[in-house]
């Protein structure tokens, strides 16, 4: 089912040309510009593959190419991440059943040398942090190459239909989707060279300079050469253990936002949300906005984690939030049909007799994110564990430089916070990188200091307290 009416976005205008793809031989209508898994979801197909060991049905989970839950055989090629591979007219798509045989393809490939791109700074990730880093570095005159494996710029901003708050210069009152457009336009205006659907696969040292190797659309090899690299690869959704947590219909909160807010696809009819942090609570509001029924939000902690304004809005909509409750299991035949929740005691154990059963077709997990640090780790940067920043994170200094000279980090990949801090960190990383490569004058320090001060101010509230604790473990002091 597709959303035809939405108070914030006009999807009829957004959708590309109609095309036909073939799912196990059956024609499916899709729109150019949308990924395969999303198009299949719109056609009511939720089971995308079967697991190798126990042949359990699996479906979407993260919808941003990070979790491998959506692998299918596309045009005969196995292990295709269908959540970020765009539909093409006539495409053949099949469910993957465990490990696939190698295609019987005897045509020796013609080796093509990589397409080479040269710049001062290479940025990996086109979300709020990466875009801001690119804009700031380019403003100073650095040649910036920016790559992202998604088909659209903006990272997770592209699915945020709510208005941001805070300071005016930090886009207060502007919807996330609009911020994505503003940043993307700004980056292009400043001459940032943008490569989409291009996955960075490694960061290498090349005689003292940096080389980022990337693959476009899983086919074409690119080399991005520069003197500095900013990694702004964001985060991926966490999973929690409960019975049947792999049943199709158990989706990450971000995946639901991608379906409805980016591609105008109805995620389901009735949703239970697990987690009452900002993501879970905002998701509830966005689901209502899209006309989807939210039965409840359960939260294991004794308190709601979200900002008061968001939680209040959801309460006004009549969505119950149960603290000290957790999900026990998902039930259903090949897809989510019910969710069983229960109250938990002070030892986090379910209290017998408190079970509630909800008839739902979607269970949304909004149980946190973890930083995507793989490339930083591969590049040799020192990694440390900081629970307050949601997992393993890279060590960095005040200018966002890691323990590897010329390798910078910004945004959620340096610890989970939010878009506003991601943009500020991006600003700091971009300016510092421009300074390092000799494109910015020393006076740029004032701008860096200003952004550092803004960050400090933003983190000074009660929500920033644990972030500051985490940063203590991470920061390298000169």
């Amino acid at each position: 089912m597709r959303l035809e009416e939405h108070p914030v976005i006009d999807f009829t205008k957004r959708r590309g040309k109609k095309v036909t793809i073939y799912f196990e031989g059956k024609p499916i209508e899709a729109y150019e510009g949308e990924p395969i898994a999303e198009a299949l979801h719109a056609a009511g197909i939720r089971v995308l593959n079967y697991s190798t060991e126990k042949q359990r049905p699996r479906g979407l989970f993260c919808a941003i190419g990070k979790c491998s839950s959506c692998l299918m055989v596309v045009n005969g090629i196995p292990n295709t991440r269908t959540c970020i591979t765009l539909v093409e007219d006539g495409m053949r798509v099949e469910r993957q059943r465990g490990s696939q045989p190698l295609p019987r393809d005897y045509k020796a490939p013609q080796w093509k040398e990589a397409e080479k791109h040269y710049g001062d700074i290479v940025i990996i990730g086109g979300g709020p942090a990466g875009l801001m880093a690119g804009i700031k570095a380019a403003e100073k005159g650095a040649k910036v190459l920016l790559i992202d494996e998604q088909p659209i710029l903006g990272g997770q901003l592209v699915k945020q239909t709510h208005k941001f708050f805070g300071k005016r210069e930090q886009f207060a009152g502007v919807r996330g989707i609009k911020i994505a457009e503003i940043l993307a336009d700004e980056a292009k205006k400043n001459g940032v060279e943008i490569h989409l659907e291009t996955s960075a696969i490694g960061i290498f040292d090349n005689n003292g300079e940096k080389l980022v190797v990337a693959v476009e659309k899983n086919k074409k090899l690119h080399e991005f050469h520069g003197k500095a690299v900013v990694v702004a690869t964001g985060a991926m959704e966490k999973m929690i253990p409960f019975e049947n947590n792999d049943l199709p219909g158990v989706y990450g909160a971000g995946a639901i936002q991608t379906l409805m807010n980016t591609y105008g696809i109805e995620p389901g009819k009735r949703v239970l949300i697990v987690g009452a942090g900002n993501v879970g609570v905002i998701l509830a509001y966005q689901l209502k906005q899209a006309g989807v029924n939210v039965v409840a939000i359960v939260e294991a902690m004794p308190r709601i984690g979200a900002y008061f304004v968001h939680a209040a809005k959801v309460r006004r909509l009549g969505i119950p939030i149960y603290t000290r409750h957790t999900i026990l299991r998902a039930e259903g035949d090949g897809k989510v049909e019910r969710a069983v929740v229960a109250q938990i005691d002070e030892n986090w154990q379910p209290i017998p007799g408190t079970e509630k059963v909800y008839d739902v077709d979607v269970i949304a997990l909004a149980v946190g994110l973890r930083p995507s640090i793989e490339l930083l780790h591969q590049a040799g940067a020192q990694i440390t564990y900081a629970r307050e920043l949601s997992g393993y994170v890279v060590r960095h200094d005040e200018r966002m430089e890691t323990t590897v000279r010329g390798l910078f980090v910004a945004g959620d990949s340096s610890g989970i916070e939010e878009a506003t801090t991601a943009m500020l960190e991006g600003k700091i990383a971009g300016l510092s990188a421009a300074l390092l490569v000799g494109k910015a004058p020393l006076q740029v320090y004032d701008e860096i200091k200003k952004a550092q001060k803004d960050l400090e101010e933003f983190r000074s509230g009660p929500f920033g307290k644990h972030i500051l604790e985490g940063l203590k473990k991470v920061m390298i002091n000169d």
Partner: protein
Amino acid sequence: MMKNKVDIAIIGGGIIGLYTAFELAKRGVENIAVYEKRYIGSGSTFRCGTGIRQQFGDEANIKMMKRAVEKWTNLGDEMDFPNFKMAKTGYLFLLYDEKEVKTFKRNVSLQNSLGVPSKVITPEEAREIVPTLDISEVIAATFNPTDGKANPFLAVYGLARKLRKMGIEINEYTEVKDIIVKDSQVEGVKTSKGEVKADIVLNAANAWAKIFNEKLGLNIPIEPYKHQGIVSEPFKLGEIKPMVVSFKYGGAYFTQKANGGLIGGIALKYGPTWDLTPTYEFLREVSKNFTRIIPALKHISIIRQWGGYYAETPDHNAVIGKIKEIEGYYLAAGFSGHGFMLAPSVAEGMADLITKGHTNLPFDFYDPYRFERGELREQAVQMG
């Protein structure tokens, strides 16, 4: 508490050190300790290509490997760890010119004369073994069905579990700093956690072996070279059963692991060096060469790449034996990329050498003094 006196101290918690401890323990030596500066297997064993083959070009290596395969076959039962099994999926060498065919035919008859059932086969027969092979340039192949592979993680953990049950001390994160020698007699080892007295020390530190040798004034040429490996995403198990080897295409070697992922590498080395940073050049050359051997691999993604040492000697054969200058000092190192596969017979021979003073295995071939005498062996057929 770590013991402060043992009969035999073994430096290195890789497959050679652990397997030798096991063979010694089986012979009734109980007071043994293994010292590993990081965690067991972390040096070279866990970085290896997993292959086990008897298709060598000289008598000594063939004999050693034949014995090793017999022992690999029984190791799971011996260490009460039936999950460990050597997979006898064979080694398939692809040959592209007459010169190669001639050398390999000679090797096959030598192997056959020593009881190894290798054979020369046609390109079509090779494709029956691996259906996705591009045989358009292949003119012949050799295949030995009793070669294969084993999981180095299971081998190491299985051995360590068994050793601990037998009361053998395995000290991880315990670095041997020095071998203590007095009046040309081994007295023990100085470790990061204190001194330990021992009459016998076995240096099984492979790439790091030379550090101890040099400190003792011994000049035995073992140098660390960086080699690399890759693993791919999994595909249907059984598609690439044997270890496939092609000298024409980059000296490539690869096979499928138990989970269906491809493991392998090519003959691109850097060094001598202690640096193990994976290189883009390697990644590119792997992609280029693997896909010439099996074109369908172009659809499969590499998911990991890592570096490890080949502890190389000038003739790519290990140095194994008793060190004459220092009573009680034994060496089993410099495996040049063959340490994992050779481990069972090296361990057996070393345990005999230590406990009985001799072994029936052809240890002379690996004599540490051959370089001094200028007697280099024919270079062992080396992969990766």
